């Protein structure tokens, strides 16, 4: 497996690992109690992280195609 695929584990570690520390009401952020804000933040970051993994996957697939089409190799 490509090494950057491990990035997909970051959201789980971040969201769940942070729960014991984020388990508080104050400060209220964007109108949300802090624990709820923390989870919302990591839901958004999940999307971002997976977008990065997807972009990296696309790039490595493209470079594989190019190498395959290169007659000098």
């Amino acid at each position: 497996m490509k090494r950057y695929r491990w990035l997909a584990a970051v959201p789980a570690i971040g969201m769940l690992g942070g729960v014991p520390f984020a388990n508080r009401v104050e400060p209220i952020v964007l109108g949300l109690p802090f624990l709820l804000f923390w989870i919302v933040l990591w839901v958004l970051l999940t999307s971002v992280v997976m977008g990065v993994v997807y972009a990296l996957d696309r790039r490595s697939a493209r470079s594989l195609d190019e190498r395959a089409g290169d007659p000098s190799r």
Partner: protein
Amino acid sequence: MTSALVIIALVLVIAFWLGMRARRGREMVLEQWSVGGRGFGTLFVFLLMAGEIYTTFTFLGGSGWAYGKGAPAFYILGYGALAYALSYSLLPPVWRYAKAHGLVSQADFFVSKYASEPLGILVSVVSVVALVPYLVLQLKGLGIIVSEASYGRVSPAVAVWVSSVTVVVYVIASGVRGSAWTAVLKDVMILAVVLALGIYLPVHEFGGYRAMFESIARARPGFLVLPSKGMSPSWFISTVALTVLGFYMWPHTFGSAYTAKDENVFRKNAVIMPLYQLVLLFVFFTGFAALAVVPGLRGSDVDLSLLRASKAAFSPWVVGAIGAAGLLTALVPGSMILMSASTILAKNVYAKARPGASEREITRLAKGLVPLVALVAVTFTFRGGDTLVMLLLMGYNFVTQLFPALVLSLPRRPIATRQGAFAGILAGTLTVAYLTVSKATMATLFPSLPSVVTDLNIGIVAMVVNVVVLAAVSVATRGSGIGKRGSGIENRETGTGIHT
């Protein structure tokens, strides 16, 4: 008939019309009835998967838990996003293998990978057992909607019967394409309703979100954080982790992975779908606002909070529209679950026991089982007492037991042996059954341990038993003649079932 019920009935008629229209002019064979061909595009799979995932559970159960328990309800927001992150790596190999081998059901996957028919039957039985509380949840939710929308004219018991008959007729009248179009309608309606409620109620009752949460924190200190005992951070983390592992182990979510046009669909979903989860915030907002509108609901009555608050705040016509959206959130997954359970029993249990059965006979049996499975669920619905969220957690504990054996089967040659996979799933499932019946918790099993351990979701025990047994039996059977590892490609004829 109240005006709220009139609206609900109208939407039901539309759902039936969509279902029938989708089916017209098509020859119904089993693969089409349950998998719908493999021609759905990104948008359609997106809606179909969203349709299955947003259920009565999130709509009534999510708001009910925010109302009744507070912060522990936030787990519902967390697990979906993490499950999509997992699906990025999990689903493409599943899809590739299923397509190459023409697989229809989840059990086919285990049968083919481990070259073991008995394993397929075990997986089928476990998944049907897990589906029952999930179906009970939908019927219970439908019953709540119908009886609340009748303003007391239809008793909850009658409402459950009416709802169950409706789901059965809907399943028989349509197929997966019917569900997919209804899912489109449902997604639009539920989004509109949840946004409207989650914005209007907090603003109207409190003047805004910050004011609402500050007021709740003042009135009930500790309600907006996880308690230090019971549903503590340790409970939260273990519950989210188990639920993430189980997310795609349901036969219908696993099966819906087969319907994708190509494997990139899953990768795009893993990027987009977490954002969709944020709709759940508005469900929580509704539940929290309901604390001010209709205080005092206790026990499993917390599931009524969203509809009770709607009835207090709006005219019956609006309540009808809310109820109609709720009806669809139960009808779409309810029909999908019912179809899955019946198809599994017919194809993966009956047809394996009687290899000579024709495809027509199996299709007929699958349809015949639909009312029977519904009847079993109705029986459990009347035993009642659990909240919607508790029912789903129970189903998850069962279905998560399939995860270790599935993941270990993904490499070209499975890491576990077929005996190991079988023994692990069986041991894990029996543990869940025992713990559920005995109502054990970590605290009753290990009273002397610190609360970090005793607060863990009880499903962890079953998972540990599963993995230990799987590993031990795999090691013991590896290398011996009977323990030959199943290797998918060479054994493809065993996996294609009735299509050969």
